[in-house]
């Protein structure tokens, strides 16, 4: 007989389990990379920098916290996809849990099973993070160091601290599972709407700005690191919290001014369900921030560095940029999937709409608008904030401006491009959801 946890995991679907394993593995690998950067500080920074031939922003103890933060922020879109994976097929799960509870399972049993459903693959993923990290260390560490600056420290190997990170990732997976369990076992579904999001997280952004301004005068070296990090964290958390409110506001505004049916539908959808789009947009904003910083950095390198040494900076920067932009594609996919799920939930209404003469291309248009309405402004804002913030630190020069502008353009076009591509990719599911067969009264 199969062990019970395995049976539970398989009942939840292989695709879902695979997605949970993949996202937790990437998260744990990214966190291990970030932690190995943090461990660098224990040795003399400059010696390790010289020995390892690290990418300058990572080797330099002054900018390293920023690099660590950037790696940690890269986990945000991955965790978002994890969240989406956990929600996938939630109607089927609800039905299964109802059947189990009729068969005598208590709600505590169900919550425990839900925790196992997500937790077991999450543990496996967290463990897989170690070989993935070692692979990254080989490719982006040892190998890259031969041609340019390394992105992953090579002098830091596994240690007891590795376990702490693995435990944290696994615990997060179990937590997410438990939460989805209480959602799925809740007697009343999400029939009523949670109220409109409130703009309170703006206070965190404000606090972050105040910290940044007050910290500017600070002189002690401990201060000089703690203050910018605190400021960035406050602003980031505040922005993430603010994003659903922004999505809601953008939806209301778009719907009110809409001239086209697609915009009207998109806006009202955002208004009715702003949280998933808002969270995704916040992640896009975080990526925009990274790309914005990179833009100024690259502009600065091009203006000030000897052409002979440029590769040391440009190759790693390009790799980070590619990772960041891949993250955008992933986020766009998660928004598009969510939007198709919403359409599928209301497939009867949507099929009726198509039957009354709304072509399915209007619905695709609505989907595109819904995705762009929140992610594009946040991508632009994040990118601008990253450029200006980093430029402010290193001193704004014409080269920095040019780099920032290029980053802005790049981010905007990648966001727009990936929304177009992903909505086109999920179009077959949308078309299936509006099939006239869904009009049947059965």
């Amino acid at each position, binding site marked *: 007989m199969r062990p019970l946890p395995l049976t539970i995991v398989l009942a939840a679907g292989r695709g879902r389990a695979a997605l949970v394993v993949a996202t937790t593995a990437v998260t744990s690998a990214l966190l291990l990379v970030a932690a190995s950067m943090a461990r660098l500080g224990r040795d003399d920074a400059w010696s390790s920098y010289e020995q390892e031939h690290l990418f300058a922003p990572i080797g330099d103890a002054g900018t390293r916290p920023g690099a660590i933060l950037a790696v940690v922020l890269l986990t945000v879109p991955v965790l978002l996809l994890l969240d989406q994976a956990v929600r996938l097929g939630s109607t089927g799960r609800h039905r299964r849990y109802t059947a189990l509870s009729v068969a005598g399972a208590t709600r505590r049993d169900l919550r425990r099973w839900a925790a196992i459903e997500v937790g077991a693959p999450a543990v496996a993923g967290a463990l897989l993070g170690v070989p993935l990290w070692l692979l990254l260390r080989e490719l982006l560490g040892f190998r890259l160091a031969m041609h340019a600056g390394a992105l992953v420290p090579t002098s830091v190997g596994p240690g007891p601290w590795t376990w702490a990170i693995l435990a944290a990732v696994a615990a997060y997976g179990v937590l997410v599972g438990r939460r989805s369990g209480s959602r799925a076992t809740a007697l009343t579904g999400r029939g009523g709407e949670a109220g409109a999001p409130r703009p309170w997280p703006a206070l965190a952004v404000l606090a972050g700005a105040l910290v940044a301004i007050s910290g500017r005068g600070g002189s002690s070296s401990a201060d000089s690191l703690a203050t910018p990090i605190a400021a960035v964290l406050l602003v980031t958390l505040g922005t993430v919290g603010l994003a659903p409110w922004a999505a809601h506001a953008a939806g209301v505004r778009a719907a009110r001014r809409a*001239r086209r049916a697609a915009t*009207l539908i998109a806006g009202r959808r955002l208004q009715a369900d702003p949280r998933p789009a808002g969270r995704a947009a916040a992640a896009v904003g975080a990526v925009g921030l990274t790309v914005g910083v990179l833009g100024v950095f690259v502009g600065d390198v091009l203006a000030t560095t000897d052409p002979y040494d440029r590769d040391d900076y440009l190759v790693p920067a390009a790799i980070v940029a590619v990772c960041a932009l891949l993250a955008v594609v992933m986020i766009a996919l998660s928004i598009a999937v969510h939007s198709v799920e919403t359409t599928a939930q209301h497939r009867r*209404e949507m099929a009726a709409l198509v*039957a*009354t*003469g709304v072509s399915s291309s209007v619905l695709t248009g609505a989907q595109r608008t819904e995705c762009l309405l929140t992610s594009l402004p946040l991508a632009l804002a994040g990118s601008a904030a990253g450029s200006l913030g980093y430029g402010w630190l290193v001193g704004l020069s014409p080269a920095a401006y040019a780099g920032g502008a290029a980053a802005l353009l790049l981010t905007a076009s990648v966001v727009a491009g990936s929304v177009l591509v992903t909505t086109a990719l999920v179009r077959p599911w949308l078309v299936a959801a509006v099939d006239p067969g869904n*009009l049947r009264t059965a």
Partner: protein
Amino acid sequence: MTDTPQSILTAHGVHKSFGRTVALRGAALEVQPGECVAITGPSGSGKSTLLHCLAGVLMPDSGVVTFRGTRLDALGVDERTRLRRSSFGLVLQFGQLVPELSALENVALPLMLEGRRRPDAAAAATQWLERLEVAQLAHTRPTAMSGGEAQRVAIARALVTSPDIVFADEPTGALDTVTGELALDVLVKATRETEAALVLVTHDNRVAAAAEREVVLRDGAIEAAGDGGPGEPT
């Protein structure tokens, strides 16, 4: 062709199967402008399938459906969509309004797609909501409406484009008797006023009695056609 010159919609020899299930085997029907036809028959006899074929939502496997002399199967998907939007209205049993949109927006939507400016579309939608006595729900979303209210809004949406013909599939099926009769009265009265034809699927005899003509479908073919009987309203 054998079409009577004045009929606006004709169907001949319509066959439709879903996998192995044969839903329609040679159904035929003609609809005159402004008339009200009820399609009745036992469950599973193919009423909904016929209605969807007539409305150009489904394409028959064989057989011909024409609207004002144009074969629906000769039109491209987009042209058919446009035809449905401008000339047909559709009312279903339940669950047809976009849940995120208010009543007013739901009714204005087809007009916006026709290219009407939003204020015009909203004004026309408001008029229809008033006519169906649900103007107070203009800014309410469907989830907060009763079944009867939602049905009136759906009727307003079907009629707002001044269609030539309205198709209704058990429009009162999900409502209690009194609410259902009210909604039906509203639908019949409104189509009469706008001189639109009404093709009504139902298995409720009282509903069928409200029509001028009743056709009975059995096993995918028209079994009998006749007048609506004693209940015909004056």
